[in-house]
């Protein structure tokens, strides 16, 4: 693939390297291709934001990295190379031993993600004990340290509280403590702020960044919120219908998006600082069925710009993920010849007229 070719020129092997990842679920109605040929790299200490609608495959691919599809009927192929080891080649038990130690994950809803019947401390200490041969007391001590570190006041006492006694933000802090207690090289955060109050969201994101610097972890942050991406991510991967449709450095993607779906995402973000002329433009239509994905470009049924492509190309031919006008670091999957000018002339004035004027 082209994208592989472009990456192959880079000198050192990445910390995490995902190659042509496919996650398919056979169902009685047919094969659901939840992730269909996903490829990306992530350096240590860096953050990748994966963006997309529900069902675009972002959570499924992260669970694949965690090895949590084991025991389901998922069919997984491709490569997930972490520090030189292909995770897909490991036995379930070898993968289990890495889980939580080398790769950790925090989830969207911290209330349902924590067991209601055990204390927060118990659950955090358990994550430590499973990978370290230490006493309960030592594990608990470590849990208190971590709770303290993630900013739980009075951690010494709160360690014995149950999840329902924590506020939403504190629960997510506790989840982060649980995720980072084994100092994993990779932390996957699946919509970590979606279920939280807006005021708390920023605190959590700050905390994550803070900790990232301290632990030097790589982070994959999965979100549908481009604001989160703007704040957190070094790179952005936009997913649609199981495929990457645009991939590149965060600044590039946010300022010079080249794929109409990414434009759509940008148009849907409300911006409190923007003036009232700015319009919220939702993406028309519904996410595609993964059982019978549209032919050609998966996005074409919803794409308002497909008439700018000659012939029936959008409907008949799947575009490759290739570098566009902005250089090799920025790839996109779109037939449009000059997306930059369309964006500047048609999209930007609609969603951020103030930016246009400044220019």
């Amino acid at each position: 693939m082209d994208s592989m070719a472009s990456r192959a020129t880079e000198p050192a092997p990445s910390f995490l390297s995902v190659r042509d990842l496919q996650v398919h679920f056979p169902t009685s109605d047919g094969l659901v291709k939840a992730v269909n040929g996903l490829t990306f790299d992530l350096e240590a200490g860096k953050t990748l934001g994966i963006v997309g609608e529900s069902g675009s495959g972002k959570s499924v691919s992260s669970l694949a990295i965690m090895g949590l599809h084991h025991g389901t009927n998922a069919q997984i192929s491709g490569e997930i190379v972490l520090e030189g080891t292909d995770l897909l080649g490991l036995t379930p038990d070898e993968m289990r031993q890495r889980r939580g130690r080398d790769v950790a994950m925090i989830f969207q809803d911290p209330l349902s993600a924590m067991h209601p019947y055990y204390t927060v401390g118990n659950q955090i200490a358990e994550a430590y004990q499973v990978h370290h041969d230490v006493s309960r007391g030592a594990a608990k001590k470590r849990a208190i340290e971590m709770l303290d570190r993630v900013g739980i006041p009075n951690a010494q006492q709160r360690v014995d509280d149950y999840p329902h006694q924590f506020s939403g933000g504190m629960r997510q802090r506790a989840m982060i403590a649980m995720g980072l207690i084994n100092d994993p090289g990779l932390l996957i955060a699946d919509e970590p702020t979606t279920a939280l109050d807006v005021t708390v969201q920023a605190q959590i994101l700050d905390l994550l960044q803070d900790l990232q610097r301290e632990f030097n972890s790589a982070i994959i942050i999965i979100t549908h919120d481009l604001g989160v991406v703007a704040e957190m991510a070094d790179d952005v991967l936009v997913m649609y219908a199981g495929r990457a449709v645009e991939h590149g450095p965060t600044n590039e993607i946010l300022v010079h998006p080249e794929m109409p779906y990414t434009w759509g995402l940008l148009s849907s973000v409300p911006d409190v600082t923007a003036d009232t002329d700015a319009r919220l433009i939702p993406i028309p239509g519904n996410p595609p069925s993964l059982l019978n994905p549209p032919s050609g470009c998966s996005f074409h049924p919803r794409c308002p710009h497909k008439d700018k492509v000659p012939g029936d190309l959008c409907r008949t031919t799947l575009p490759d993920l290739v570098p566009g006008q902005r250089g090799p670091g920025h790839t996109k999957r779109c037939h449009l010849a000059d997306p930059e000018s369309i964006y500047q002339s048609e999209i930007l004035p609609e969603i951020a007229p103030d930016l246009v004027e400044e220019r």
Partner: protein
Amino acid sequence: MFAFIVRRVIAGVIMLIVMSLVTFLLFFASPVDPAQFACGKNCSPAIKEQTRKALGYQKPAVEQWKDFMVGIFKGRDYPDDPALRKAAPQLVAHCPAPCFGYSVLNSKTVNEEIKRAFPITLSLAVFALILWLLGGVALGCIAALTKGSFIDRGLVGISLVLYAFPTFFIGLILLKFVSIKWGLWDKPEYTSIADGGVFSWLSNLFLPAVTLAVVFMAAYVRMTRAFVLEAMSEDYIRTANAKGLSKGRVLVKHTLRGALTPIVTMAGLDFAGLLAGAIITEYVFNFNGLGKLVVDANRTYDLPTIIGTVVLAATFVIVANIVVDLLYAVIDPRVRVA
């Protein structure tokens, strides 16, 4: 929590009082004359009335109920006629509080009858409970973990079939074939630990306990399977897996604990029901527990015993409900409201 218990206990006591009154009223509303049944052959009206007096049924129902309530709190002396008690003290049966009554048909106080019968029923219920909980939960987990496989389908199918079997049918098969015809197991005859030691106690309880346990176990297999499957789809199980916990630990510590609440509720109420007497099983195996006491009392229209066992059974159910609620608090910290 304390206020909660007090409230529940008070509500329970009121319910018991009302129920005992209703039982009295229903008993005397029945078209069958209980005195006729105890009267014997050649029962002339005069003798029938004297029999009624001997049984203690001559007063109006509400009056009898009042006497019963007095007996519960203060105890009672029998026979009811004070002149007779004074003239012939050797006849007097003293029934200390809480007195459930004196059954002329059994020539014993109801308390003595219950004291005799209860250990039998309790032994049976505990043995059965252990069998069906261990078997039901273990098999239910296996079915849930192998969902969709032949093992799962087999377990679910068998438990459906067993669940549809009436208890007396299972009991009769075990008694008639396993015990009498094939001689594989001695015919059970309840032997207390004091009389025959632990082994004899257990081996005699085995067949009746299995009879009881089979039907319950079938229900618990399906219930456990459903609740474990439900718990397995919870987010916190994904979290537990993401920590790298072993399968066994995820199942026992996280999944089962999550599925426990409804199972404990059911088990508590089922157990309370059994304490009131496993009527059919006791009848088939001739175990003289509370269930058989109830059946015999109903057959002979023995009001004091009926009342005593009804109130006792209701007490068990009420207490079990309170205990289950308290267990909730133990199991689920979210219920522990300050």
